[in-house]
């Protein structure tokens, strides 16, 4: 029997849960725990410069690896600073475990120094949360937290630990549970066979089918199965922002992202489809446009592990609750068994129609003659320079959409962005979390001069731990997406959407001990990217790239319209 203090138990339990890195920031209520961290080397701690960044780092790690990221912060402001990061993970179903310090149990409720009701503050944005009431329950709660965070529809779990639960001189028996069981939590293991059979019957009869794939496929690690099904059926495949890479972005059957800034052909395919197979996607408002006008002729098959995602916004004709991979397996087994194949004539004429749609917009954009780049050019250049194989994180806004549209992701878990919550300041720390765990891969944060300033302080963390991420800042001197909407809906009144007094990002990067490169024209981009990726391979490089502030993201769905109602340029509408 081993006796450990609460602090030692916590660190040991984290190690047993498979944790290599904790991202965090110490403070009064966690000092016993930080002392326990100091006394061992199995679990490494990364000291961020702002707790929000710790949550995004853990999140980036989780999105790239599928394993829960771990955050450790002190009580009060330390805890509340993580809320945006927790909410970001929650909205995108990302596994995360957040350890927050708390004031001594006997002070809870007294408005003590650095006391805040973390369980209350975080409640709407966590999958679950625990408060430690006895030190000896720490290992069990850690095991439960990891189990809940990473199973079913994943999400963040908070463990709030009052300081007196971690006293160094009070030791208790340490038992890490071999297995976790919760009577009130049983994530679905497989889909309903009858429903899956119905789905397969619909699919083989379909004349204008489409497979609409979402983040759930990436999270479930089921990209291979998705690819197999799409290729076997020879159906077109579209993806949500969160699902990019699950089906290869360069493959012919991929018709591009769908939704508000989806491709013309993806939205047309959806609108005209007679059967839609939604796989791990949730018919989000950025996908459906007006739900009343959504895909009028389509029968909808919806696979999701979360029953509440089904028929929430769009009613499913065939709902299937279960893990995506398992359901896809069963679908393919049924196809084998029945020996049925889709109607090849119908599918051929469907492809003919799709291929007629494809050239209509073809993600074209006009280039400037004066050398000032359009943001799309930068993403294309980045795609070429990284051979389409980098981990790309983004912040939120125009640059995010351009990255999603023009960087063709062929692998899952490579496109890392805050799709649901839309958190500016996410990209850079997320990239750090990835780079730390994939040191041999290119990790690039595509950002804007607005977003990057929301967590720019982390350049200091990067120097301390040697995290050579590449920052590609599309600098148009304005909050591009806000500006775009103001151009389109507010007669060009740019209320608070441009930035004056921007820092000299090159000098700023240098001041933090890194490399800064300014790119003003098209001609300078290839060399700058090469320098960033090769010459300064082991350094953080901040590329400050000037781009045209007048550019808009297209296609763009017309608000309150159907899937097929789009602006294709500033002047062309479907």
């Amino acid at each position, binding site marked *: 029997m081993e006796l450990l203090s609460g602090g030692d138990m916590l660190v040991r339990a984290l190690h047993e849960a498979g944790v290599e890195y904790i991202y965090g920031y110490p403070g009064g209520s966690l000092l016993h725990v930080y002392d326990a961290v100091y006394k061992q080397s199995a679990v490494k701690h990364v000291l961020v410069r702002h707790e929000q960044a710790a949550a995004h780092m853990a999140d980036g790690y989780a999105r790239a690896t599928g394993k829960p990221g771990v955050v450790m912060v002190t009580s009060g402001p330390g805890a509340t600073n993580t809320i945006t990061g927790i909410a970001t993970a929650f909205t995108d179903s990302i596994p995360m475990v957040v350890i927050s310090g708390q004031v001594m149990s006997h002070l809870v409720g007294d408005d003590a120094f650095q006391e805040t009701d973390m*369980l*209350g503050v975080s*409640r*709407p944005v966590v*999958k*679950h*949360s625990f*408060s430690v009431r006895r030190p000896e329950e720490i290992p069990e709660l850690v095991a439960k937290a990891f189990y*809940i965070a990473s199973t079913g529809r994943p999400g963040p779990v908070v463990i709030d630990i009052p300081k007196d639960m971690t006293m160094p001189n009070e030791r208790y028996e340490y038992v890490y549970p071999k297995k976790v069981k*919760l*009577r*009130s*939590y049983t994530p679905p293991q497989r889909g309903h066979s009858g429903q899956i059979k119905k789905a397969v019957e619909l699919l083989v009869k379909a004349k204008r089918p489409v497979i609409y794939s979402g983040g759930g496929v990436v999270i479930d690690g089921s990209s291979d199965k998705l690819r197999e099904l799409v290729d076997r059926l020879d159906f077109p495949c579209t993806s949500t922002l969160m699902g990019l890479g699950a089906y290869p972005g360069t493959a012919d059957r991929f018709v591009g992202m769908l939704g508000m800034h989806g491709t013309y052909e993806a939205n047309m395919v959806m609108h005209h489809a007679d059967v839609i197979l939604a796989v791990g996607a949730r018919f989000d408002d950025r996908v459906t446009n007006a739900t009343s006008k959504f895909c009028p002729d389509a029968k909808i098959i919806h696979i999701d592990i*979360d*029953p*509440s995602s089904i*028929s*929430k916004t769009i*009613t499913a004709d065939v709902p299937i609750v279960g893990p995506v991979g398992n359901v896809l397996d069963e679908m393919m087994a049924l196809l084998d068994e029945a020996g049925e194949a889709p109607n090849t004539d119908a599918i051929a004429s469907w492809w003919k129609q799709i291929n007629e749609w494809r050239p209509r917009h073809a993600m074209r954009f006009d280039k400037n003659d004066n050398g000032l780049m359009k943001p799309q050019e930068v993403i294309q250049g980045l795609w070429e320079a990284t051979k389409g194989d980098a981990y790309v994180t983004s912040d939120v806004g125009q640059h995010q959409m351009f990255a999603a549209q023009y960087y063709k992701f062929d692998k899952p878990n490579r496109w890392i962005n805050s799709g649901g919550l839309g958190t500016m300041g996410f990209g850079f720390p997320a990239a750090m979390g990835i780079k730390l765990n994939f040191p041999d891969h290119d990790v690039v944060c595509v950002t804007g001069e607005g977003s990057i300033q929301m967590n720019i302080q982390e350049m200091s963390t990067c120097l301390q731990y040697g995290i050579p991420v590449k920052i590609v800042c599309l600098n148009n001197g304005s909050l591009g997406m806000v500006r775009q909407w103001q151009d389109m809906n507010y007669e060009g009144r740019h209320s608070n959407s441009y930035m004056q007094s921007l820092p000299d990002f090159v000098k700023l990067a240098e001041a933090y001990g890194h490399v800064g490169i300014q790119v003003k024209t098209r001609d300078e981009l290839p060399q700058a990217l090469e320098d960033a990726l090769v010459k300064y391979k082991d350094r953080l490089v901040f590329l400050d790239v000037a781009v045209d502030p007048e550019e808009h993201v297209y296609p763009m769905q017309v608000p309150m319209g159907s899937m097929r109602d789009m602006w294709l340029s500033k002047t062309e509408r479907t």
Partner: protein
Amino acid sequence: MRHIISILLENEPGALSRVVGLFAQRGYNIETLTVAPTEDPTLSRLTMTTHGDDRKIEQITKQLNKLIEVVKLVDLSEGQHIERELMLIKVKAVGAQRAEIKRTADIFRGQIVDVSPSVYTIQLTGATDKLEAFIEAIGAAQVLETVRTGVSGISRGEKVLSI
């Protein structure tokens, strides 16, 4: 339509706040809410009434089921069930009214549980519409104070909500 949702909940601190918070967060309406431990002290039984169309009620039950501490849940209004609410009501009772109120209470099978020279306190149990009918019969002008427990409910027959 009105629904009575009955939940077996882990009897843990904070569990109730998750249920109530969910309703606030997602814009659902709680009309009544009762909660108390069951014969198994690790479980609480919670009954709530809410209004909504089928889609909304489906979302409510699905979202509630997602809460880790919700062990089991049933929408009682989907089947045969018994619902009861308890009301304590103080009414003005002077002169000839005293006899009249007593009679009305008897008709509704209410009990007068406290008496003062000018006030009766009546205890009444029944479905919500019965309690409302009683208030109407007494006359709103006579009512000084009401306190109601909110709806409790249970399925008819063999069906039980247990683990």
